[in-house]
């Protein structure tokens, strides 16, 4: 593999790693609400970012590495910023041949950027400190009330688990196929667009074929080990929600949701 995927799980034994996955899921949910809530002010958003960075520091996955991951999203940041700046009506502070920049536009551009950063940092924190198995275990537990409505919670969790598990495998396979086709002169990164699109087929067809084959094999392997899904299915270790989790969740909810509540009341 060329590099690590942004947000890839990093094995560790920090306080954050040891938290119950449900705590982390709910905490991440609180962060998402804080980031998406309309009318959040810049200082609060900055404070949120600072606080998440502190948690990342505590989790020992490397603050610099996480921040470096922001670079992969730079086009998204730039595009949303430009859209917000130029397409928000308001008090014009700069008019240039019909293209107007408004004060509100700049403000919205900056807050949107900060919101995206919060979303990225929050979700990275979750996936970098929680293994996919724990993640789906937590998700299954949190969604279990839906069982009363006959929603297939266990099956959904298993689907999510398997998809997350195979992301690195498929990426690795895509890289091998890309190299193999390059060895036959396929050009993925140069040449006219039409040709490049055609070249992508040389990657997609074998990749899809291999993935379908793998899915069939996996299903067969699971069945031959008597997997049937559903209720009668236990785990090797069960999750424990300790007082530490209570405190962590309390802090997260206070930090991220108090400003939201305050803004709502006023």
């Amino acid at each position, binding site marked *: *593999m060329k*590099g*690590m995927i942004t947000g890839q799980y*990093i*094995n560790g034994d920090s306080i954050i790693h040891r938290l119950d996955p449900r705590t982390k899921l709910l905490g991440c949910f609180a962060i998402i609400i804080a980031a998406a809530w309309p009318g959040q002010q810049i200082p609060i958003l900055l404070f949120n970012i600072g606080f998440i960075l502190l948690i990342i520091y505590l989790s020992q996955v490397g603050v610099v*590495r996480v921040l470096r991951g922001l670079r992969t999203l730079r086009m998204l940041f730039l595009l949303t910023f430009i859209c917000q700046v130029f397409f928000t009506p308001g008090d014009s502070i700069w008019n240039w041949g019909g293209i107007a920049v408004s004060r509100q536009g700049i403000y919205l551009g900056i807050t949107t950027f900060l919101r995206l950063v919060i979303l990225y940092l929050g979700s990275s924190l979750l996936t970098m400190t929680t293994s996919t198995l724990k993640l789906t275990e937590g998700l299954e537990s949190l969604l279990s009330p839906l069982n009363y409505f006959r929603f297939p919670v266990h099956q959904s969790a298993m689907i999510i688990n398997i998809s997350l598990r195979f992301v690195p495998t498929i990426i690795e396979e895509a890289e*091998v*196929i890309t*190299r*193999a*086709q*390059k*060895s*036959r*002169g*396929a*050009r993925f990164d140069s040449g006219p667009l039409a040709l490049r699109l055609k070249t992508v*087929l*040389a990657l997609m*067809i*074998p990749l899809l*074929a*291999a993935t379908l084959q793998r899915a069939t094999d996996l299903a067969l392997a699971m069945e031959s080990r008597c997997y049937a899904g559903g209720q009668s299915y236990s785990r090797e270790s069960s999750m424990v929600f300790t007082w530490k989790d209570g405190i962590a969740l309390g802090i997260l909810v206070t930090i991220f949701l108090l400003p939201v509540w305050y803004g709502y009341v006023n």
Partner: protein
Amino acid sequence: MPIIETKDLTHVYLTGTPYEKKALDKVSISINQGEFVGIIGGNGSGKSTLIQHFNGLLLPTSGSVLVGGEDTSVKRYSKELWKKVGLVFQFPEQQIFKSTVFEEVAYGLKNMGMNLPEIKNRVEETLAQVGLNPREVAHLSPLSLSGGTRRQVAIASIMAMRPAVLVLDEPTAGLDPSGCNHVIKAIKEMQQEYNTTVVMISHYVSQLILLVDKLVILEQGRLMAWGNKREVIQHMNSHNLSDLILPDYLRLMHHLADYGYQVNTGIFSVEEAAREIGRILKESHL
């Protein structure tokens, strides 16, 4: 001048992450035009990483790789390297994507800019070379073929480009004996007919030893032995190399030498081993 030359080639995967791994550690070898070189080593010894440096897919973290006297880290040069160095990956049949065998084998040739009548000749020639009947298989869908035949098609798609260097990563793994023979025969013929340099990774050491001129032995990214096969095998002693990689009759020869018998350890085949044992039995009047 050697066609491939590596100097202190070191390759580190995922530099600067917790998953950092040194796959190659100061490997220096040189391969001449027309030579048949075998690479052996256990899983994770860096074999596949090494060969991907030969056509510029991977670039050294430190050290250098020269192909045809030019540095692969020069981008202008490494971009065109695929024409010169044909690389057959492990399980190449998994990279097949065209709807007919003909188109699959023609893919590389089209990318080289060859014209259609030429391509047609070349494809037919190469299919025959790997032991397939062009008239029978050319129009078939690769999916309708058996695993072994698909492998032959995939190897043909690289061979058709007539690279100066042919690099193969375990081309016979998982093939039945007849498929295996077809593939080996085609490789050998190509080497002899066009003076192609062949570099081949294989776990079937007893088979590889009979084919090659030179051997490279890797262990955990380090070059354990390198040179003419007779010298490499002769000086391999059972203490400093994991026995696993040698076929049992060669291990027996080395063990006999360890016990003080005057036995020639520089042999390659079972027949030679049998003759050696017969000679020792006669000499010691047992």
